[in-house]
């Protein structure tokens, strides 16, 4: 099941935080933030928790598991 994320949305909600700033705060490269936002890379639980904590939201708000439609 595909996972969608709202990293970009919450990043802008946090004072238009740049990708580089978010990357520095969670300790990854900016390219990894780009890949996560584009949905090209699903982060580990650890990185998902760090992203959620940095953006001040829950993991469930940040990452949504799209249920398959029957």
């Amino acid at each position: 099941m595909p996972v969608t994320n709202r990293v970009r949305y919450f990043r802008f909600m946090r004072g238009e935080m740049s990708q580089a700033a978010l990357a520095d705060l969670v300790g990854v490269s900016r390219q990894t933030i780009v890949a996560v936002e584009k949905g090209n890379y699903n982060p580990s639980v650890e990185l998902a928790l760090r992203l959620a904590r940095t953006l001040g939201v829950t993991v469930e708000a940040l990452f949504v598991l799209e249920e398959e439609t029957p």
Partner: protein
Amino acid sequence: MTRRTLIVARVLWVAATVLLTVGWNENAWILLIPLAALGPLLREVAPAADLDERQRLLDYRASHWALIVTYLLIFVLFAHAWYGLRHEPPVELWLLLIAPLIVRTAISAAQGYGTRKMALILGFVTGAIVLAFSMAEHPFSPECLLGAGILGFTSLGIRWPRVGGGLLILAAAACGAFLVPIGMRNTHGGWMQGLLLTLALPTPLLLAGLGLIGPTLRAARVPPDEFVDLRKTT
């Protein structure tokens, strides 16, 4: 060490090997053997410090392409030996063929079983082989003590990994100090064969010892569980 440093070091190593092969000795490509064997090992044991989890995944995938390119090169070298030079490929080329396979198999097994269990398996298998060969040649001779000792040290590692691992490393050092000079004097010109034969026993012992001690050192660095007291009281 950063990823850029590692890439530059690897490129320089390969370039130096190519230059030496072209300009000095056509067998200088054996310098690729440590790169092919140690590259995947270093990638797993000590990944570049600046890599995040996605970059490590990409690096791991890139290693598959590196392996494919390595084997294409090996096939070219085998074809050159068989059809160009019309002689059997040297033992070093066979070593280049099997070294990455052995390293990758060991890494995959270690990831599946875990480092400690893999080290125990390695110790028991090495001890059993040494004991079996000793018994076959000279039953119940002092040589059998070496195999029995390896089995005993590995058994100690089940309960006390640091003690067993330390004894295995000491055994590897003792075997190396004893066997390597003998092997190097009796190689009849084939220094590579002599080196391989004399390292055949100390190397697995050293790896088994490090495999037993390594996880205990990593566990010692893990910060204490801050909720352990809460769980005890609830």
